[in-house]
């Protein structure tokens, strides 16, 4: 269990409050009218929502992993965090090379990059 405090209080309760507040902001951001902000920033309203949701999801992710899953503050946190980060490399590969490519990317490759060109 955690042997530290957050702002002098129990870390689990503080983490719980934080997650509830961030989730409420997340849900509120979807319902809020941000057309004027979008216009001022020269972005689409969807784009602003995406940014807000991403910015909120990142700390939520770390708060759960670090405090609830004890990847911070325990004697074995360091090595377990390294274990947890091990697939990060593969995740980056998958997101970059699968998630961010076009569905028709394979058919759009240059001729030298297609099967058959090198006798394969």
């Amino acid at each position: 269990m955690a042997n530290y405090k957050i702002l002098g209080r129990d870390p689990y309760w503080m983490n719980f409050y934080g997650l509830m507040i961030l989730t409420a902001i997340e849900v509120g951001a979807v319902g809020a009218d941000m057309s004027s902000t979008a216009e001022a920033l020269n972005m689409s309203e969807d784009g602003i929502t995406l940014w807000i949701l991403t910015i909120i999801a990142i700390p939520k992710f770390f708060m759960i992993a670090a405090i609830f899953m004890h990847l911070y503050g325990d004697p074995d946190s360091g090595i377990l965090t390294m274990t947890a980060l091990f697939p990060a490399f593969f995740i980056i590969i998958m997101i970059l090379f699968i998630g961010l490519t076009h569905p028709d990317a394979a058919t759009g490759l240059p001729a030298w990059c297609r099967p058959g060109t090198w006798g394969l």
Partner: protein
Amino acid sequence: MSIGIGLFLFVFAGMFDYDLELSEHVYTGEGLIWMFVAIIITSIGMFVFWRQDLSFDGTYEPLATGSPFRNIQIRKVGMFVFLMSEMMVFTSLFSTYMRYRLGLRRCDDVFADGLFDPVTNPTGWQEAVPVTCFEPASHLIASSWWHLAPGAVNTFALIISSFTIVQALRYAKKTDIDEELRRRRVTMFLGTTWVLAILFLTLKMVEWFVGFYIPDLGFIHEHEIKSLVAEGYTIGADHYQHHSYVDEATGAHMTANIRVSASTFYVTTGTHGAHVAGGIIGLTYMTYKAWRGGYTPTNAVSIEYFGLYWHFVDLVWVIVFPFFYLY
């Protein structure tokens, strides 16, 4: 248990066939007997595992002896390795979603192009000619607070359940309270987690299949919230019509083939839901064990390991909820 679960998944997949004429999956019932065999094998495995666990008093928890995990519980490391393999599963689903989301045009953008006209708008959509485009579920779900309610309540339910499982572990490890109080508190927190998990799946069913009705309460107007399936948002939808895809001047409807977007939504959120369902099975047993007073300060590792799994399920939802439900 692994053999049973593997057999179940293998047989389950074979029980459906794709009918080219109907353009949908049909139930064939092939291998039904093997499905029961798989369920029996899994149940026996769980029964034996739980029977052994009930008498486990925590006096021997194997620790790793080699570097780099020296003196760390082997089962805890194993749990993290398992969770990372799970992370890969969800990453592959998420990258699939990103690929199609970024690669296909959004249906509302296609609709905004306007009705086809050979002279003035040759690139527009035509009535009764389905357009293959990406229709995010959020277009329906985030269209009103009532549509969003089940998903939003579920998000809070999962966060609260993550907190209650930590509290169960805390009380199980407390040495300065008497045994009876510990037993009651641990049972209460595990039971609460169980109830919240059931609530999560119930709301998921409401959102997907059932829908709900809000009567006129004076300060709240009458509403009928249709389920996603009732709205036509299904994995086989090749003539999907969102109620807003109507050309005001002519009354023509734009129809869309949304199989890709609906599939990514249902497969990802369904896989997450299956993990919650698996958690409910584990929680049922753990709540029973807690009620029998099975968790003590020296024997609380099961709650800790299950907690890691449960937090992971919450962690996945942190990503799934904004990107599949809100955006």
